[in-house]
C-alpha cells in the first residue's frame, strides 16, 4: 500500500487565502518530513522540512505541522499568491546514517486564483 498518501489530488484557493495541504503516513519509524514544490516540466525543489522532535516549523508564509500520534503532517501557506500555483509533494523517511530513503506522496495540485 501507499506509505505516504495525499488524499486530495487538487485544491483551489483564492488569492490571499490560506492553502492547507495534507499528508498521511504509515511508518512509525519515519523521523523526517518534507514538502517539495514542482512546477510543470520542472524538477521538484525542497520547500520546507521538519524532524520528528518538533511539531511545528515556520518559514515565512510556510508552516509545517506534524502530528506524530495521528501520523499526519500538513503544510499551511498563508497569503497565497498565484505564483504558489504548482504541484506540492509531501515526503517522509527514516534517517539512516545521514541519508533518508524518502517516500513521496502522489502530489496535490494547488491552484491559487486571482
Amino acid at each position, binding site marked *: 500500500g501507499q506509505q505516504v498518501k495525499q488524499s486530495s489530488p487538487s485544491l483551489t484557493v483564492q488569492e490571499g487565502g490560506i492553502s492547507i495541504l495534507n499528508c498521511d503516513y504509515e511508518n512509525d519509524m519515519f523521523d523526517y518530513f518534507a514538502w517539495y514544490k514542482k512546477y510543470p516540466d520542472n524538477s521538484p525543489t525542497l520547500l520546507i522540512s521538519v524532524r520528528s522532535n518538533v511539531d511545528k516549523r515556520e518559514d515565512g508564509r510556510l508552516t509545517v505541522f506534524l502530528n506524530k500520534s495521528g501520523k499526519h503532517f500538513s503544510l499551511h501557506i498563508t497569503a497565497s499568491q498565484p505564483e504558489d500555483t504548482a504541484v506540492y509533494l509531501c515526503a517522509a523517511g527514516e534517517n539512516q546514517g*545521514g541519508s533518508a530513503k524518502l517516500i513521496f506522496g502522489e502530489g496535490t495540485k494547488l491552484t491559487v486564483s486571482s
Partner: protein
Amino acid sequence: DMKVTQMPRYLIKRMGENVLLECGQDMSHETMYWYRQDPGLGLQLIYISYDVDSNSEGDIPKGYRVSRKKREHFSLILDSAKTNQTSVYFCASSPGGEETLYFGSGTRLTVL
C-alpha cells in the same frame, strides 16, 4: 552553481530496446537516487546509491539496474524496455548527513 544534470531530456525507444539514462552531479554528494513519476502515483523510488558501487533497491526495482562507478555519475539501465516503463524519470542527489534531495530536470521516456 549546484547542479544535477540528466541526459537525455526526452527519449523514445521501442519495446525490447536497451535504455541508458545518465545522471551527473557536481556537488560531490554521496547519495544518489532514481525515481519515476507517473500520474496519480507521485515519485516512486527505483534505486538508491549510497556511494560508488554501493547500491540498494528502492520500492520498484524490477526491470531496472543501476551503475555507479564514480561518485558524480549514476546511471539507470533498462534492459529490454517495456511499454509500462514509459514515464518521467528523475535523478536526485543528497549530501551525507542531510536528507534534502536535489533533483535533476527529468527524462521523459516513451517506450513504444
